[in-house]
């Protein structure tokens, strides 16, 4: 295998223009060093602190060690056998030893390019490039990933694929770019006359990102990690902590309260730190290329991520507002686009971090056009929609009571269970009202706007020309109340977006306007 892999690799005889290129060899080193670092606490514990190595504390390190060696071997093989190239019409990748895989993606099908680097990749000058083309994520197939390329190669690849306009690297205002990131951001900033900046990182957004249920999970994870790490050094954190808290005297109520408050605070803090790490230098821009434009986000302090999404694939935008935090207008903003997975942990479809509603609406106006369809005041749904929700709230309470009735009557279960079930009722009625007030729908220009959701009020604006299927649904209860649910199906985002409980008279007209030309041939004028 030739040594100058990063300068072009093996040229195919018949492909004189487009050469096969390879991954960067540094990926092997990076992954190997990572496994060494994972092992270091154990080594320090044994060598420096003289801890006697015991199997029950050391086994995770043995597993990590073995895993590190195995993955280094796998990396070498991957590096040896992976080649990619860009032709006029396609990107291709060959990989695999025993099973040779050849994948090619037509360049006009590319919907997104994701350039990602963890801290270790950045130190080694590496980037992981993921090329998104709709079909693959829909089929649950692995995406087109190149892990990892030298930074220069990754930038070159992105520029070639997006056909970005050529420009000299330092002809623009770089004043806002912090030193450490100058290299990463220079090319984007350099083309400032082709780049519109929609939003930049604001430190106070951290407030919106500290509070969620995940805080507890993150606290639990961190505390467990600390406990486990300390135990390798022979320290039991529960014993240590009993210096301040007498765990035996608290009883389970006390421990729960301490856990809820302490865990919540600790979790919120860690979420805040996490936000700064993840969204430092955040920037949302529109990048114009020869043929189309891209919405690009860049973010990250230690590990960085840059996602470019083809705007011609954008089908709309949705914002969702959690009920408990509506008083500070906490809002999530997600792009509806084909080719980006909504299940991805890194949320490539989120074009803004969680933040104030005002920013989300500003950005929506710039992405979808001014005035933003999401900012339109939506008329309230018919009263029948409220009645339906109240009925359901009552039914759910009734079912719960029905389930516990026999056990309570025969005194297998204490009576407070029944009271608890009854107490559900007012809560359910309240949520029914909240759900009713969230309802709304409208046609605004090229977009169909739908709003619903109880715990998370979601407003979605979907391009009307991207609605592929229309379904109108009516349950027996809805029939009595003279309302229908109109569902619009599309290939992007959640695939289906619904306007629940539209007045039955209006539903057909709304459906025919939401998908122009679709239902016309089945319409009749009612006598």
């Amino acid at each position: 295998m030739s040594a100058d892999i990063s300068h072009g690799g093996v040229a195919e005889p018949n492909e004189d223009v487009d050469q096969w290129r390879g991954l960067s060899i540094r990926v092997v080193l990076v992954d190997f060093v990572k496994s060494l670092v994972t092992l270091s606490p154990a080594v320090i514990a044994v060598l420096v602190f003289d801890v006697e190595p015991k199997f029950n504390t050391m086994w995770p390190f043995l597993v990590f060690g073995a895993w590190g060696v195995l993955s280094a071997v796998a990396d070498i093989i991957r590096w040896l056998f992976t080649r990619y190239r860009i032709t006029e019409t396609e990107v291709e990748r060959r990989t695999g030893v025993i099973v040779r895989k050849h994948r090619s993606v037509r360049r006009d099908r590319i919907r997104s390019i994701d350039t990602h680097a963890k801290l270790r990749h950045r130190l080694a000058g590496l980037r992981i490039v993921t090329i998104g083309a709709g079909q693959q994520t829909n089929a649950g197939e692995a995406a087109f990933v190149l892990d990892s390329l030298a930074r220069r190669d990754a930038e070159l690849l992105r520029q070639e694929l997006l056909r970005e306009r050529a420009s000299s690297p330092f002809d623009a205002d770089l004043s806002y770019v912090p030193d450490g990131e100058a290299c990463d951001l220079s090319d984007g900033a350099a083309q400032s006359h082709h780049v519109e900046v929609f939003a930049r990182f604001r430190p106070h957004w951290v407030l919106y990102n500290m509070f969620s249920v995940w805080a507890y999970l993150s606290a639990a994870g961190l505390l467990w990690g600390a406990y486990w790490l300390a135990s390798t050094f022979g320290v039991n954190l529960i014993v240590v902590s009993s210096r301040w808290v007498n765990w035996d005297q608290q009883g389970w109520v006390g421990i729960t309260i301490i856990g809820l408050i302490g865990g919540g605070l600790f979790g919120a803090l860690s979420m805040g730190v996490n936000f700064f790490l993840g969204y430092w230098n955040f920037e949302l821009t529109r990048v114009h290329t020869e043929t189309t434009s891209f919405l690009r986000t860049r973010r990250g302090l230690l590990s960085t991520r840059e996602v470019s999404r083809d705007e011609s694939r954008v089908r709309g935008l949705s914002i969702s507002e959690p009920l408990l935090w509506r008083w500070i207008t906490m809002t999530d903003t997600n792009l509806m686009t084909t080719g980006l997975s909504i299940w991805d942990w890194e949320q490539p479809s989120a074009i803004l971090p969680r933040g104030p509603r005002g920013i989300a609406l500003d950005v929506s106006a710039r992405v979808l056009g001014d005035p933003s369809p999401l900012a339109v005041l939506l008329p309230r749904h018919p009263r029948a929609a409220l009645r339906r929700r109240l009925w359901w709230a009552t039914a759910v309470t009734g079912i719960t009571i029905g389930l516990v009735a026999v056990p309570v009557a025969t005194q297998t279960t204490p009576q407070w269970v029944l009271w608890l079930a009854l107490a559900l009722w007012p809560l359910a009625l309240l949520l029914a009202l909240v759900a009713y007030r969230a309802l709304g729908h409208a046609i605004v220009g090229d977009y169909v706007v739908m709003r619903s959701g109880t715990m998370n009020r979601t407003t979605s604006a979907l391009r009307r020309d991207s609605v592929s299927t229309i379904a109108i649904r009516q349950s027996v209860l809805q029939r009595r109340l003279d309302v229908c649910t109109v569902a619009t199906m599309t290939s992007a985002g959640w695939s289906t977006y619904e306007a629940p409980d539209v007045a039955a008279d209006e539903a057909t007209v709304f459906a025919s306007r939401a998908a122009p030309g679709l239902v016309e041939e089945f319409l009749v004028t009612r006598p």
Partner: protein
Amino acid sequence: MNSHDDLTNNTNDLLSLRLPKLRVERRAMLWWAMRSAIIGGLILGAVVTGYVLYEPAQVWLVVPLIVIGLTLIVKVLVEPVWRYSVHRWEIGQFASYATSGWLVREWRVSPMSRIQTVDAVRGPLEQLLGLATLRITTASSYGAVKIVGLDYTVAQEAASRLAVVAEVAEGDAT
């Protein structure tokens, strides 16, 4: 102006969707009944087994048992007839159109230009009754139109006719 803007000029309550032209096979009623009997029977069997074998659970299972039993009766006797009166279908000029459901009724319209795949699918029970399901998928994972209870030859003919249309349609249908 184009057609959808005209609609707004009219008074809203004058327009409605007409029913699709074609009904499904009568045999489909038998298929729905058999399907409900098998699935419901399995669930009922599992709960009865739990009731008999695990005595402490009995007090919790009385109400569920009654509910499951009643549901089974309704699903075998009422649902098939009800569904037969609702299920209809039609392949129009620009779109396929189907109504389905019983407690929750659904009108579904899907354009020809977005068709990705067309299949005539037959499960074991359907094969027994000479029935088939016509499944027309679009790029949306929820957008498929499924027309159940068709005669096998009818479904196959419709599928091949639609496949030709899908070939003609341009673009990648997203």
